[in-house]
């Protein structure tokens, strides 16, 4: 009944290259062929698929992939019931609340009641504002939340930032940090039992390969 262990990787964006690289350092080279959605790897026990970073937690929770590499923020946002086996160290970012630089808002307390908030992270956004007892209207946008204040869609945004560069360019300032995130190796609960020895071997290699330990 042995089959290949499937790893889901972010198909594009800032996590794509480092994910491929971290696996390479652990001895798994992805032999990527165009137009096939399942890629072979140099280790015959593993195969890889590429998916949106946002969808990786779902693939892993439902066992469509046994392992997945994606951000801690995304795993929390998707409320995925998966094991986070390892902090891979890269993909450091923060989920923040930002408002226009020229607005009078200096802290979360200054955000008006029933403010509109544009975000790609509706769950984490809602939870955060509930925790600070602010009532907000959450607008889900895909990708470019930083445009929302410019276009008058919402004054406040909740978004990911790495260096703060995009925020500065869009004349936005951070008023709160919701969480710090890095890229994680997520694992399906059942796969972790079934493939324990193989997965532990990979974990060992990933740790030695330089991924920072949790």
């Amino acid at each position, binding site marked *: *009944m*042995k*089959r290949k262990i499937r790893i889901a990787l972010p198909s594009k964006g800032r996590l794509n290259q480092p994910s491929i690289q971290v696996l390479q350092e652990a001895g798994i080279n992805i032999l990527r062929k165009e137009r096939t959605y399942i890629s072979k790897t140099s280790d015959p026990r593993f195969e890889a698929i590429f998916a949106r970073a946002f969808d990786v937690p*779902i693939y*892993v*929770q*439902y*066992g*469509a992939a*046994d392992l997945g590499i994606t951000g801690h923020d995304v795993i929390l*946002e*998707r*409320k995925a019931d998966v*094991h*986070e*086996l390892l902090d891979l160290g890269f993909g450091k970012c923060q989920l923040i609340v930002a408002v226009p630089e020229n607005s009078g808002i200096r802290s979360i307390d200054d955000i008006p009641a029933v403010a509109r908030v544009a975000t790609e992270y509706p*769950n984490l956004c809602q939870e955060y504002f509930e925790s600070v007892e602010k009532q907000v209207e959450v607008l889900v946008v895909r990708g470019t939340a930083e445009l929302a204040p410019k276009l008058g869609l919402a004054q406040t945004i909740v978004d990911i930032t790495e260096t703060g560069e995009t925020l500065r360019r869009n004349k936005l300032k951070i008023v709160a940090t919701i969480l710090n995130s890095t890229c994680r190796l997520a694992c*399906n*609960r*059942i*796969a*972790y*039992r*079934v*493939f*324990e020895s193989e997965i*532990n071997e990979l974990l060992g290699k990933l740790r030695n390969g330089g991924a920072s*330990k*949790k």
Partner: protein
Amino acid sequence: MQTPKGTKDYLPPEVERHRYVEQRLREVFKLWGYQEIRSPAIELVEVLSTGVGSELIDSMFKFQDFDGKIVALRAEMTAPAARIVTTKMLEAPRPIRLFYICNVFRYSQSYLEREREFWQAGVELIGCNTPGADGEVLALLASSLEKLGLEGVRIDVGHAGLLKDLLRATGLDEEKKVVLQNLLGYRDEDQLEKFMDQNNFSSQLREAFLRLSRCRRLEELSSVALEPLKYRRIKDYLRALLEVKDSLVKYGVENLVFFDFSLVRKIEYYTGIVFEASVPNLGLPLGGGGRYDNLIEKFGKVKIPATGFAVEIEKCLQALTSQGFQPLEKRKVLVASRFRDSAIKAVEAIRDAGVTALLDMTRGARKKVLDYAKLSGINYVVFVGSSFEKSATIHDTRLETVTNMRIKAFLQSLEDDQR
């Protein structure tokens, strides 16, 4: 016009597959002496909420009855079974063996799309608190899944009482308990040790957590030694688990059973062993269960220990499908004739032989009848003349062959094929 979110229609092919799983499970449950019960899909919310924990209560569809009482759709079947036992079967000799196959409803608030109506098949062994009873339920679960034709079945066993008591013994606050439980789930020994050092675990407790989280098989539990006085209950739990293992050996299913110290179920009423069944090609458990010795008394003040499990029919089907399973297709025969009389006689004769037979309604041209048969998944079309005793023309729709023979001979040939 669509069905509400998370619900669906089952068209004939799906029902067929669904029924296959149901019937197999029903057969096995009955062979083991379990008797089927049914209960209303709607019950008072107090009944359904008893002992199950807030997560399940939150997920119930609730609404108000005409008299103002709050009712809900059942979200699982153990609470209704407990109610039935306390209110209607107190006099029944114990142990009582019950099973059910029914739909349950859960409203899921999570981000994920999930079925909100799904089917469960489960058993309850009531009135027995011996490891032998847990052994029977585990062996029945293993047998049921294997009888379905599933390969690579495994059952992971934990113990709700053992984990709860050990967590309590740490004296950690709730938040830290969750962290610890996660670490146990990740089986990350380094992190576990670090955590225990930071939180000043006694050496004895440290040893217990480490050893238990290393155990992968029930028999390895014999290596876990604890001072008898302080942790007497924990010792009892370990002994019981080892006895469960002994009974699994007798059933010959010990190879399928693993130990997972971190295993917890989302429903709260479990007190003893808890378990989950899975196959390697499905990332979600097929089902699970465990011992619940304190649930039934909440319904009627009589303490009755019990143990049981439930599996999800849909998950079993998904697992079967991904293992390449095809349900055995039953053959179907369409009978056509210009003479209604002999056509009816012919279908009756075929049905008497236990083969599915349909009567052509169109009395149309041969080609039309054959096209209909092909599109409807019918294997043979039999054209009968004025007398069904005489030779009939038989089309095999797959092989596209035509033969002439009498119905009797045709039925004989079908029977021969079956062998």
